[in-house]
């Protein structure tokens, strides 16, 4: 499909660069990328104010300006926006949450791979005690990355799995616990209560934990992603987003709305089904993907 790059070039070349055309084009790109109307209007209004298209003669320069403006809006003076809260000399706990099928379990495998390559001692915790094949799925990932693995029997209480895993971690010098949880829709009260309990148990057993609670969001998700972020955040403070399946045709723009409305940054991006298909979020690259 046409990229804004192509259209902007075209507009400039025919000398008919009308900022209205350009910004209408941008609006359409954002809406079709699932950014949503509210955030799109905010972004485009800001861009209209700060970009004087009369003085711009190259589409490359214009693109640079757009990205610069959007980056400022994204970062919001938050210097540590991209960091993962892992420190030496403590047991770090990363909790992965989200609705069904978004890629939590697979992402844990990928993050484990990254941390193990950095020399950390990692343990995967099978907190999904409900879904068919869930524990086995995580066990296979732990074998692939050669990490420790903790599980109880299927059907056991996930909070007690966390409790037992933390006890084990304290006795075995583990650096990072990557905790998997069952997929759950945010409107299911009982499942959100279960997550609340998981969070409290982790916090009680390790001070300051979970150090990261990552909401895993599927790039194909539409406006419901905002409701997911809001309700999950009420139950356990979401410190970052993992945007998965960005190797598909969806752009995952809802994460920009989540950042804009709730201040939650994107920490990782999933680009496939293999261990190496994980990257730290790079805003410029992400925008290029959206526009291209």
């Amino acid at each position, binding site marked *: 499909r046409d990229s804004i790059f192509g259209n902007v070039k075209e507009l400039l070349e025919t000398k008919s660069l009308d900022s209205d055309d350009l910004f209408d084009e941008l609006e359409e790109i954002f809406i079709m990328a699932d950014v949503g109307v509210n955030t799109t209007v905010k972004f485009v209004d800001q861009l209209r104010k700060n970009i004087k298209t009369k003085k711009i003669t190259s589409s490359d320069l214009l693109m640079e300006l757009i990205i610069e403006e959007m980056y400022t809006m994204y970062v919001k003076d938050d210097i540590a926006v991209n960091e993962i809260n892992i420190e030496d000399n403590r047991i770090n706990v990363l909790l992965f949450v989200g609705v069904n*099928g978004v890629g939590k379990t697979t992402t844990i495998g990928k993050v484990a791979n990254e941390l193990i390559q950095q020399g950390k001692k990692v343990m995967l915790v099978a907190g999904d005690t409900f879904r068919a094949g869930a524990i086995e799925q995580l066990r296979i990932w732990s074998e692939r990355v050669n990490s420790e693995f903790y599980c109880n029997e299927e059907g056991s209480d996930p909070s007690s799995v966390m409790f037992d895993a933390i006890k084990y971690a304290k006795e075995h010098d583990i650096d990072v616990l990557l905790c998997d949880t069952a997929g759950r829709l945010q409107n299911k009260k009982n499942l959100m209560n279960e997550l609340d309990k998981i969070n409290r148990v982790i916090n009680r057993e390790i001070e300051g934990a979970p150090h990261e609670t990552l909401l895993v969001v599927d790039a194909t998700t539409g406006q419901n992603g905002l409701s997911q972020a809001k309700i999950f955040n009420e139950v356990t403070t979401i410190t970052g987003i993992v945007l998965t399946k960005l190797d598909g045709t969806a752009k995952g723009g809802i994460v920009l709305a989540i950042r804009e409305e709730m201040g939650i940054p994107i920490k990782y991006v999933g680009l496939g089904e293999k261990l190496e298909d994980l990257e730290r979020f790079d805003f410029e690259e992400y925008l290029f993907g959206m526009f291209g």
Partner: protein
Amino acid sequence: NLSDRLQMSLRRVTGRGRLTEKDIEEMMREVRLSLLEADVNFKVVKSFTKNVKEQAMGEKILKGLNPGQQVVKIVSDELQRIMGDKAEPLTINAIGITKMMMVGLQGAGKTTTAGKLALHLRKQNNLKPLLVALDVYRPAAIEQLKTIGSQIGVDVFEMGTKEKPLNIMKQAMEFAVSNGNNLVIVDTAGRLQIDEDMMNELVEIKNYLKPEEVLLTVDSMTGQDAVNVAEGFNNTLGVTGAILTKLDGDTRGGAALSLKEVTNISIKLMGMGEKLDQLEVFHPERMASRILG
């Protein structure tokens, strides 16, 4: 919801006696916003709203008593018209083996729905289903299907992860014949519609199997991308119907409208939960009112 928003935008107008085209346009803006929030595809929203506006101008809304309500009715009727008035049924063979293929993106709910479908059709049509495990890629996918099969007492045919899916499919059909199964439901690996090799794999399986149903499993919270996915699967493979999953969530489900309007794929079933008995026949009017909000 739309009705409230239209009432609010009309509050600025009442007292003047009759509506102008400008007022109708203002109402169409609310319709557009509402549908975009519901994840209806941007291009579908444009054509849909244009259509509604024509009807609103044509009807005597301009002199009407309650223009907001009338517009809501036009929108609702138009949604209903597109969604259809009842779900098309699944194709079941009167004699011989009925074959169904589950296809779709990663994580949409294919494996779970395959189990639900087996349970549903065994009950409703008194069939003897066989589940076939063709996902040789995802860790523990076969385990997942085997567990589901044992939970509902349905046979699962699998040959582990070291065989090619097409070979497993052929062996599965031989087994189905000797085992007396008259319904074969094939679970495939999730894949992107832009992954040529993986889409080719599906085409090969379909050409061999000649299934009565190729069911596209779509997550109901899918946003603007629903059209790309539906077109991709339908153009490359050919889809006979869709199953919308996770409708027990609170998403508005506008992807359903896009599926119907752009690719005319018939939505046959809806997944209403994680348990294997949570599958329902698609209800177009319920979907229309859900999208309306």
